[in-house]
């Protein structure tokens, strides 16, 4: 069992932290968002040069073949610095491509790792409410190929991506994963910023005609790949949340020690001390389950551990986010202080990849069959 980063992982994390500090100060981030400049191609290239985009890929795929905690370390720094570039969703999408048996899919990995190509995994739907197996997207045979219809919601990094991985059900009821070019005719993108400033899009597929080779995984393999991608998404999201939460604790602690009311620092008020202690407890519970889930990746327990982690993420992200705002008083409600930006990022994470109730339901079902 391991519950912390190795020396090498820490060293890598430190180098990335410096990069983030240099490129993502809060004012610059605000100005970028004002201009809706959510993706900076130059930063993306630099991240690729730092090796950030190739960590969890085999050397044959062009990657660095490093353990998953390296990606978690990246995620933490992304959370701490509120990085807008979609490193995490693109990396998880890339890992799905790498895990498929499709040579077509794998052929994009080199470009993904070098930063020339982005891929978006589009599986969330309005009515699926977190369940990746509940898709309304349909795939019907036509001639030698297929026709895709349906909608995806809040596909991360879709606006910047050249390729989409899309889940759909065929007429036999089997899940299929498809790889399509973003420019393929019949696809409409509705791009927007999420509440936290990250970029996403709703995708609509209107009689999109695809060759048979567009399918990169079918039936049980498609389900397994998708579930693994979601488990991995949850783990990196939780690591990102930990980065954000740790930073919120630092900011809040500093504020409580310096802000004075009634002639003394807020930190002197016992009710606020207790509140801060509860925030720390929420953070540590999430950190523990993060490492627990990280250790289960690739095992039979992966889905259960990820579900537990997402439940805790929902609780910790909400509590720490809300209380950080509360303890700042009026200034916490503004866009001018970064506290609100962390709160919004944490709130969005609560809603993505299935909410707490969905994962509790899943855990309850797992308990029934075990």
């Amino acid at each position, binding site marked *: 069992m391991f519950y912390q980063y190795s020396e090498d992982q820490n060293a890598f994390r430190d180098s990335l932290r410096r990069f983030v500090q240099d490129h993502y100060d809060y004012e610059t981030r605000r100005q970028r968002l004002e201009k809706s400049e959510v993706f900076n191609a130059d930063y993306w290239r630099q991240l690729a040069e730092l090796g950030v985009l190739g960590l969890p890929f085999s050397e044959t795929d062009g990657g660095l073949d490093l353990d998953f905690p390296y990606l978690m370390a990246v995620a933490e720094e992304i959370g701490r610095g509120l990085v807008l570039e979609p490193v995490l969703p693109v990396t998880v999408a890339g890992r799905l491509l790498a895990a498929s048996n499709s040579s077509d899919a794998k052929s994009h990995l080199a470009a993904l790792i070098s930063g020339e190509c982005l891929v978006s995994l589009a599986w969330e739907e309005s009515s699926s409410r977190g369940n990746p197996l509940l898709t309304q997207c349909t795939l019907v045979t036509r001639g030698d190929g297929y026709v895709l219809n349906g909608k995806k919601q809040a596909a991360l990094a879709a606006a910047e991506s050249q390729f989409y991985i899309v889940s759909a059900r065929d007429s036999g009821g089997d899940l299929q994963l498809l790889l399509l070019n973003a420019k393929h005719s019949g696809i409409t993108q509705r791009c*927007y910023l999420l509440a936290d400033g990250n970029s996403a899009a709703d995708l609509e597929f209107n009689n999109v005609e695809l060759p048979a080779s567009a399918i990169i995984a079918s039936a049980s393999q498609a389900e397994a790949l998708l579930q693994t991608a979601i488990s991995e998404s949850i783990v990196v999201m939780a690591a990102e949340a930990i980065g954000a939460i740790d930073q919120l604790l630092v900011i809040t602690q500093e504020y409580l020690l310096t802000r004075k009311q009634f002639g003394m620092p807020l930190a002197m008020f016992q009710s606020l001390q207790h509140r801060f202690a509860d925030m720390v407890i929420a953070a540590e519970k999430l950190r523990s389950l993060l490492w627990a889930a990280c250790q289960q990746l690739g095992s039979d327990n992966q889905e259960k551990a990820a579900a537990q982690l997402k439940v805790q993420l929902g609780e910790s992200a909400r509590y720490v986010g809300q209380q950080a705002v509360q303890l700042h008083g009026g200034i916490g*409600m503004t866009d001018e202080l970064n506290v609100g930006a962390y*709160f919004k990022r944490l709130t969005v994470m609560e*809603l993505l990849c299935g909410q707490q109730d969905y994962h509790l339901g899943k855990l309850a079902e797992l308990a029934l069959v075990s």
Partner: protein
Amino acid sequence: MMSNQLSELDTFRREVRDFLESAATDEIREAGRKTTSVFAPFKQAMAWQKILYNKGWVAPAWPVEYGGTGWTIHQRYIFVEECNRLELPPVLPQNIQMVGPAVIGFGSEEQKAKYLPGMLSGDDFWCQGYSEPGAGSDLASLKCRADSDGDDYILNGSKTWTTYGHHANKMFALVRTSSEGKPQQGISFLLLDMNTPGIEVRPIIGLDGEPEQCEVFFTDARVPKANRIGEENKGWSVAKYVLEFERGGSTFGAWLTPAFERLRARCQQSNESGVRLIDDVSVARKLAKLEVDISAVEHTEKRVNANLKHGENPGPMASLLKILGSEVMQQYSELQLEISGVDALAQQHSALHVESGIAAIGSEADMLAMPYYLNTRAASIYAGSNEVQRSLLAKAVMGA
């Protein structure tokens, strides 16, 4: 309640409903629906205030001789319920609930004649200049100086979190006129024109990306002493009087109940895949629990009101109601966000603006869920933070 009383109230409710339905324009209703904080969109809130003013219903809690309606506390509650049932924009509280009572209680006859009509009609909008960067919960430590100079005060300092300061033509402010004695003793209550030379307003962008609060800076701004309400250095008593003016005016339940009914109705509709959220037992149970909490708010408010003797003030129950009401409102905002789920994620600034003519990406309710959730975090911060209210309640109840 006795049955004949009930039917009288029912008649009253019908009368109110009929008027509201006929008087609210589409634009006002859109603004009501798109109200994502306690402060409705400015322009339409003022237009609605004017309509209520013309009807004579704008200030139900004011004494009749100053323009009040003479309604009982139960009628006032019904009025708020009916306004919320139709999702109308609430009248902004500053004129009617804050500065008006101060002038009624402490103003000279001349001041009353000069200021009250514009407050009621909405021809003036008054912003509240209490908080300062260094004086929030500890309001009495405020520093904005008003130095005596003949018949005038000269103001230097700043105010912050001034809601709609950028829309206001007037401000009521607490300023420091003396630094002797206890901090509360050197404060005066001043009325001023926002176009006074030496006043500068800077809007602050909120969590939802919209300006709502402002910073206001004073540099040698000259305000006539005749604009002071009450005696010099006695402004703290004026401010305290305002807080107690409404006596049982808490109406969180009147807002929450109709809002909850709309939320439940949404969950009873089938989504694209023919699924009703209410059939999900975890959603149904959460709705049920929220309904219990809202009932507790509503009946606590009504119980407090029913037990108030005329003119009495609810004492520590006011703190209790503020904590309870604001926190259940926050729970409501959380459940609403959970119900919208990923559909609540898109930022939609333009579509949120009244009369933008831009359709929401999904449903209007989904578009509103996130800004409402974010803004409702303020409910435990303003009007006496819930930490401060808990201390007051504990002190009053424990007597320690």
